């Protein structure tokens, strides 16, 4: 089987049969081992073996799969029922777990962070790392990855970042993120830079000074609260205080620290990749603009990720414009590139010079139409779905449909050379500017919504 890097040199026509057969094989492997997946398939009359015609039916929704603990447990606070949560975790994984492995768990934990840390401790031998989604709804997806799966994810991310953006091991990486967090993208950045040696050589900085555990994120968003007095305190005391601290302490300190680092790199000639959420990088750019901007060494780059999750008074295009106007690299505006990913994915799609987001060549990516059927065409506008048989690991079947409507080119087996990206990368890609969240709830006429 090809390694992930080798996929870059495989012609598209050779990729498809490899990917398809791997997907079918992975289904057959996971089906008997993964309870949640098996139940999902059974609800769609899908059995232990499938063919190409069944592919759409095995997809699980990213919006629900690793949040289903809330429905099954009846609470968004699994720290209140660790044993039940452990049972849920077990159903999500394609490995058998001896009951005694859960024995060290306490009856309750004071926080979700404490529960997740305890689980990681129980399975330290397997190298468990538990990540969450950004949790802006207050209800976070929770994903377990073991050492192998996590390592694959890191390989995938950093292979992509090196291939697409030319980031080498000499580049200083400045992340406008907290070092301590379970948010998947930031967690991957932390452990990936560690694995690749950036940390050992002192080439990594995290400029958000405070940790961001899932409980803090939940309370700050103030959308999922504890019942009773505790919830009142969260909503009326804790959330406003945290947000005030964030806005008046963490954010200014982060911006100052980032700007200082950038100035230092400019002075020492150290090329930089500055990475963060668009609105946070915008704050850095605006701060630097007040002092006339900054010129960074050639080869420096700004990477954005995470999308615009919270309301912000400026558009993505405005943010990029302001960054490009403030930061220069070499003789021109700094290159600004975006990355698209999600917590459930072991991959990321990096923006090319043409503005398109390229999916990794080891991914089988398709778009779904309004009936959740795969659109069999090289240009397809629909909901993005993916199968990641080589990069997704063996802990759970990496077959998901997202909540993002995209315009996908050359996805699945439908490769049309005439539609290949002008950047020269012969992989499937999402057309610039076409990623849009497809919310599932809608109002219809006089039938109201509560």
């Amino acid at each position, binding site marked *: 089987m090809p390694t992930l890097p080798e996929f870059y040199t495989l012609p598209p026509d050779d990729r498809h049969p490899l990917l398809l057969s791997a997907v079918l094989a992975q289904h057959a492997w996971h089906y008997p081992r993964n309870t*949640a997946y098996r*139940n*999902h398939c059974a*609800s*769609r*009359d899908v059995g232990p073996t499938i063919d190409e015609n069944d592919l759409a*039916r095995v997809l*699980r*929704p990213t*919006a*629900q799969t690793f949040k*289903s603990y809330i*429905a*099954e*447990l*009846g609470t968004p606070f699994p720290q209140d029922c660790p044993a039940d949560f452990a049972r849920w975790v077990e*159903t999500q994984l394609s490995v058998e777990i001896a009951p005694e492995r859960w024995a060290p768990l306490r009856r309750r934990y004071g926080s979700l962070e404490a529960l997740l840390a305890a689980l990681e401790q129980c399975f330290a031998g397997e190298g468990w790392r538990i990540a969450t989604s950004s949790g802006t709804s207050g209800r976070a997806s929770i994903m377990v990855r073991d050492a192998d799966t996590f390592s694959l994810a890191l390989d995938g991310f950093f292979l992509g970042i090196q291939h697409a953006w030319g980031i080498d091991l000499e580049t200083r990486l400045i992340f406008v993120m907290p070092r301590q967090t379970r948010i998947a993208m930031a967690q991957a950045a932390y452990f990936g830079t560690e694995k690749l040696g950036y940390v050992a050589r002192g080439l990594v900085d995290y400029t958000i000074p405070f940790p961001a555990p899932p409980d803090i994120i939940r309370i700050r968003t103030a959308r999922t609260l504890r*019942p009773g007095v505790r919830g009142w305190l969260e909503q009326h005391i804790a959330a406003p205080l945290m947000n005030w601290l964030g806005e008046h302490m963490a954010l200014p300190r982060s911006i100052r620290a980032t700007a200082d680092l950038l100035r230092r790199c400019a002075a020492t000639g150290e090329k930089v990749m500055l990475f963060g959420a668009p609105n946070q990088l915008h704050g850095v750019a605006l701060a630097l603009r007040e002092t006339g901007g900054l010129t960074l060494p050639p080869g420096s780059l700004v990477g954005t990720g995470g999308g615009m999750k919270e309301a912000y008074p400026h558009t993505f295009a405005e943010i990029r414009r302001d960054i490009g106007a403030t930061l220069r690299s070499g003789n021109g505006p700094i290159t600004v590139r975006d990355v698209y990913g999600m917590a459930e994915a072991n991959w990321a799609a990096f923006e090319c010079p043409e503005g398109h987001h390229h999916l990794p060549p080891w991914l089988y990516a398709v778009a*779904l*139409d*309004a*009936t*959740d059927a795969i*659109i069999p*065409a090289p*240009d*397809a*506008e*629909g*909901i993005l779905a993916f199968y990641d048989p080589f990069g997704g690991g063996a802990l759970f079947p990496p077959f998901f449909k997202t909540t993002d409507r995209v*315009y996908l080119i050359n996805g699945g087996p439908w490769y049309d050379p005439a539609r290949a990206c002008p950047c020269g990368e012969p992989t499937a890609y999402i057309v610039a500017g076409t990623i849009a969240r*497809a919310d*599932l*709830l*809608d*109002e*219809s*006429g*006089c*039938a*109201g*919504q*509560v």
Partner: protein
Amino acid sequence: MAIGEVPMETLTAEGYWIPRALRERVLEGATFETTWGHHARLVAPGTPGATGAVWPRLTDAGRRALWDGLRAAPQAPVAALEAALQQVARRLADPGDALCGAVSTLLPPHTGYPAAMLGFAFGFFQELALTPLARMAAWTPPATVRRGFVPLPGLPGAVRFYPARLGAWLGKGFARPVAPPRTLVGFASGNIPGAALLIALLGQVLDPRPAVIARNSRREPFFTPLLLGALEEIDPALVANVAVLLWDYGHADGPEGAVQAAVLREADLVLMVAGDTTIAEIEADIHRAGATPRVHRHGHKISFIAVARALLTPERLSLLAPLAALDTAIWDQNGCLSPRLHFVEEGGRLAPEDYALAVTEALRAISPRLPGGLVDVRRLHARFDAFHALAAGGRATVHSAYDDPFLVVVDRRPYDARTLAEAINDAQDRTVIVRPVPALAAVPRDYLRRLPAGNLQTLSVALDSRAPEFLPFAGAAGRCGITALRTVGRAAFPGLAYSWDGLLPCDLVAARPAGHYTTIEFDDALAQIAETAARVRGWLAQG
């Protein structure tokens, strides 16, 4: 959709209606625009499959000529209009008739509702009775309507008034007549065809008839003009006082704002059938225009089904399940009458799970005859998965299959305010959420009471109305804000003469304290259920 499809030939038709006698003068100097729609969405011109509604932007002189002409229209007897409506309804049901052909050609692509559903719904137009509506418009409810249900004049059922403020219970008087509106301005939603026609018909039963201008909906602009045209063919006097137009609003400044202000200043009564946000915009426009009409609001509504344990027997469930399925399927649950939760009383010979199973089978039988048009399959699948996750935790049961074009679940989660709202909002796209309750009394006490009273509408019931607990139950539902109790299976054909969102036809010509009417639309619920079931059986048997 694959990019690069060649656009197909597109259809256009008038999305407005002006009496023939006034057209030439009113339209002089007007410019025309076309709004394109496809499957309930506004789309760009040339979109494959789209239909275009043409409508005029009138000049000031044209608008003045319209008002003058509508106000000078002769009166016409309600009986004549009723007879003409039945004639038109027969034409609608005749596949060989040009009217049926026009409706079948224009509405399905524009609205997304398939011809089969439209045909089914319009088939009941023949029962549209204006005489009871006129009678109700002329009725003065007794003051006792504040304290209990009172019979309706010449109609099955009863009505009760629930005041919004405590003082309204006091005093001898209740409603006092006001001068009939000289001008009625209506704003019609387009989620279900015919709102503009309904507004027009309400005006037609008043004496004297007002000038009626209905602001049409871009989402469904064809049906009312087509029907008014058909009525005019029979006798122009029947609809000489009515116009249906499109104009923009919500813009305080500029020419659109001026048109809206001009229209509103002419109105004695504004009747709004729209979403809550749109109603708020229009009311802001009324204020800005300095207009002072009376206002009737028909905003966002949620409705429910309640099933008593007495109906959960094999014999009665076989009657009831197709009716509940029909209520769910019609208009793809997009109507204000569409039930969101089905409250099913436990302790009967059969259980709520049996009810769910029966409704599932009924929906499977009905779906080919009433195929969905606006069912969002993706959302349906997402709900299917969400309820399966609940089922894994023992909190729900999923009865329908992944490939069913609907969803039926029994939801046994504990409901707080958030989950209740989530469940209600989830009941779209032909989603039946069965909610077991220990007794029907729990429905108003534990559910309806926790919802915004102003958004409650219909409680479709399957129960024995002769049982002593019925009236207290109806009273409790009314106190929560429910404005209509009817029997299951009648969401497709509501009675115009009854309470419409808490307003009776007599409210068009009466002033009364703030509050709402709740009507019971039957004398004997079981008998009416049996009658409806027989009709639906007959329809299904036609195959």
